[in-house]
């Protein structure tokens, strides 16, 4: 394997990492602020992708589709928060796991009911399609570079929102002691609805952005959900910075694992089964990474103990 | 130093830049109450945690009845006779009072790895549990779920749990915290009677109780023991007054 190809794969890994960060950001925000395990995050991701596909299909505009994704996911999030999640803050994780598991069923089948069982069309807009030439002779899809840019912007904006604004201070205060911040005059219910809607909107944005280069179909959120969980657990639940680092680690591990493990396995099990064994190990690589990280740091890289 | 029950030798512990324990040496002798006082954040709870085994010291050692227990965990030290009470009540909230005490009896008698015999039908566990409840005045509440107890009753339960272990020494972190005046008085009387059974290392901010109970007092400031001595000597010590007691005393 040439060095340039390896470099390109590293870039692919970083790109996958940023994409994973987009998916995980909302999840970690919601967990960090509300202490809530939201298994339905993947469903909100799916809602975003479907809304984008439907609206951009009707209007022909990708940007309108993105806006619709944000709006639909945020609205779904706000609704879910007010109807269901609000009653779960005081419960233990078990109830949260179960209720949001139920929400997955409702969202998935509800979407199928609305949109049918076949995948929807959502594509990269023409002004972002095709590759650009990078140094070293790497052709890289424009759209993926745009996704990296959006991911970095979201990371920056979230860091600013949480760390640098009064709203962020109140959010973090609510995270530490919900009742106390209410007793000091902050409308915690509205704040939480807001945060949940924001987390949902981020999921929807990710769904729409990523949906354009993947398939928009019922159930698309589930593999993403698991990946996003792996990312935030590695990074330390609730930490935006952790989610970012975790996402990059997972992206790199997954990409390089897929690329390198079959090569490495050739030397271990011989060329016949190298492809299958290598790919099998590669599909477990991120879980192995996660287990290793947690064995060394039981609450993730940036987690609080 | 032969007849010390508990010994802390040169124990140090740092949290980042904070030196919470700074070469602490301290002992507990049979039949005494040794009070540990000091300003907030001096490192008292940190020291207790290291004695109990919940925190590992960076340096130094902890000895229990002549045995070095520095490398042992919480449970193993408890099995060697160390009973600890918590600054914030730590009890199983959904179990009854009696079940909590029986559990402690299981621990004390090493009867945990039994899967078939009902714990509450085992007289060897029940008898010491009821005896301990009687001593702290909770006999009437044996069947009450702990979550339904008042704060003061929970503090008593906390004590009963330590009693049933029949320990060789007690380590108590602010047992009077949150008790009202009457509760404090009762608890003080209980503690005074307890030291005959096993010596007590007592961390407490209630100076009335400390001066009433302690045989010796050590003063901890910024992780260092600045004075150890009889209550009167400590009360008179000018360093102690400046660092902790203030001039109002």
């Amino acid at each position, binding site marked *: 394997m040439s060095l340039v190809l390896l470099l390109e794969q590293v870039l692919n890994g970083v790109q996958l990492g940023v994409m994973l960060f987009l998916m995980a950001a909302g999840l970690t925000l919601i967990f960090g602020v509300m202490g809530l395990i939201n298994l339905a995050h993947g469903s909100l991701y799916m809602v975003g992708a479907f809304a984008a596909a439907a609206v951009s299909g009707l209007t022909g505009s990708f940007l309108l589709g993105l806006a619709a994704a944000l709006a639909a996911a945020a609205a779904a999030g706000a609704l879910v928060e007010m109807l269901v999640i609000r009653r779960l803050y005081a419960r233990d994780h078990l109830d949260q796991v179960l209720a949001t598991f139920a929400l997955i069923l409702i969202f998935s089948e509800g979407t199928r009911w609305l949109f049918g069982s076949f995948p929807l069309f959502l594509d990269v807009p023409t002004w972002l399609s095709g590759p650009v030439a990078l140094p070293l002779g790497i052709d890289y899809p424009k759209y993926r570079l745009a996704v990296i840019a959006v991911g970095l912007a979201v990371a920056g904006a979230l860091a600013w929102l949480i760390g640098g604004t009064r709203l962020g201070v109140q959010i973090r*205060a609510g995270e530490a002691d919900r009742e106390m*911040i209410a007793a*000091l005059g902050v409308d*915690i219910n509205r704040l939480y609805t807001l945060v949940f809607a924001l987390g949902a909107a981020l999921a929807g944005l990710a769904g729409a952005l990523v949906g354009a280069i993947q398939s928009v179909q019922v159930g698309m959120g589930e593999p993403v959900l698991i990946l996003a969980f792996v990312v935030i657990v590695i990074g330390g639940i609730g930490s935006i910075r952790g989610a970012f680092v975790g996402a990059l680690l997972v992206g790199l591990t997954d990409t390089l694992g897929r690329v390198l493990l079959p090569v490495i396995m050739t030397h271990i099990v011989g060329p016949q089964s190298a492809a299958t064994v290598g790919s099998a190990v590669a599909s477990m690589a991120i879980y192995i990474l996660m287990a290793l990280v947690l064995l060394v740091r039981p609450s993730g890289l940036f987690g609080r103990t | 130093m032969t007849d010390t029950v508990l010994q802390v030798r040169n124990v140090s512990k740092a949290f980042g830049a904070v030196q919470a324990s700074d070469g602490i040496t301290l002992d507990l002798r049979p039949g005494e109450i040794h009070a540990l006082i000091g300003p907030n*954040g001096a490192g008292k709870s940190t020291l207790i945690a290291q004695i109990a085994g919940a925190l590992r010291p960076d340096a130094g050692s902890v000895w229990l009845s002549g045995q070095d227990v520095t490398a042992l965990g919480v449970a193993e030290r408890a099995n060697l006779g160390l009973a600890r009470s918590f600054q914030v009540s730590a009890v199983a909230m959904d179990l009854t009072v009696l079940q909590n005490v029986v559990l402690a009896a299981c621990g004390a008698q090493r009867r945990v790895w039994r899967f078939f015999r009902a714990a509450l039908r085992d007289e060897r566990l029940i008898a010491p549990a009821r005896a301990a409840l009687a001593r702290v005045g909770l006999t009437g509440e044996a069947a009450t779920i702990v979550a339904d107890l008042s*704060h003061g009753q929970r503090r008593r339960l906390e004590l009963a749990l330590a009693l049933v272990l029949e320990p060789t020494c007690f380590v108590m972190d602010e047992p009077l915290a949150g008790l009202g005046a009457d509760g404090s008085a009762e608890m003080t009387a209980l503690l005074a009677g307890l030291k005959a059974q096993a010596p007590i290392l007592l961390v407490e*901010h209630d100076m009335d109780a400390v001066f009433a109970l302690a045989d010796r007092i050590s003063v901890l400031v910024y992780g260092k023991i600045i004075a150890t001595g009889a209550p009167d000597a400590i009360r008179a010590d000018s360093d102690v007054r400046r*660092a902790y007691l203030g001039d109002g*005393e």
Partner: protein
Amino acid sequence: MTAPLLDLRGVTALYGSSQALFGVDLTVEAGQVTALMGRNGMGKTTTIRTICRLLPNRAGEVFLDGHELSGLPPHRVARMGVGLVPEGRRCFAPLTVRENLTAAARPGAWGLDRVVGLFPRLGERMAQRAGTLSGGEQQMLAIGRALMTNPRLLILDEATEGLAPTVRAEIWQAIGTLKRESGLGILLVDKSLRELSAVADSAVILDKGRSVWAGRIEELSPDLAASWLGV
């Protein structure tokens, strides 16, 4: 006669199905300190939680400046001018001292500078995380945080529990200053009768969820104290 700042009339409250308050009457006047006393578990904290609407009252009324508070959410009560220093301090541990103070700040006479003027130690630790402060510093922070909301009524629940005697003295001094200089009404729970007597104007005693005595603090005879408070 003008209405008192805070007025509770026959307040009752439940935790789930078990009743904790059976009828509490209590008033706090502006510029005065009222001490709320009683043994453990008699309902002091519960009373305070119902005032702040952290717990709904089952019956009775709570008036702030003549306005009924029942039915309002807690943040509305706080915005009407009730500042709480809760039992157990409850500082926002992961936030810095400065963030703790600004989280709920509302415009008014009290701002960062004035709080730091009252507790100079907080000024030295502005960028430190509240969770790593010593107990006494946390208590100061909790008081400062309540003041930042510019309340008309300040409620302190066991504000000196677990504090070293020196720190305690400082806090009593600060409460005295507040009362004299800001004209706040203050409702105070503390276990040391001796120290309360020095600062409070009036007192209410709770027993088993009922207010059983109310009056000027000087009028609280040792006999009464012994029978209701066990001292």
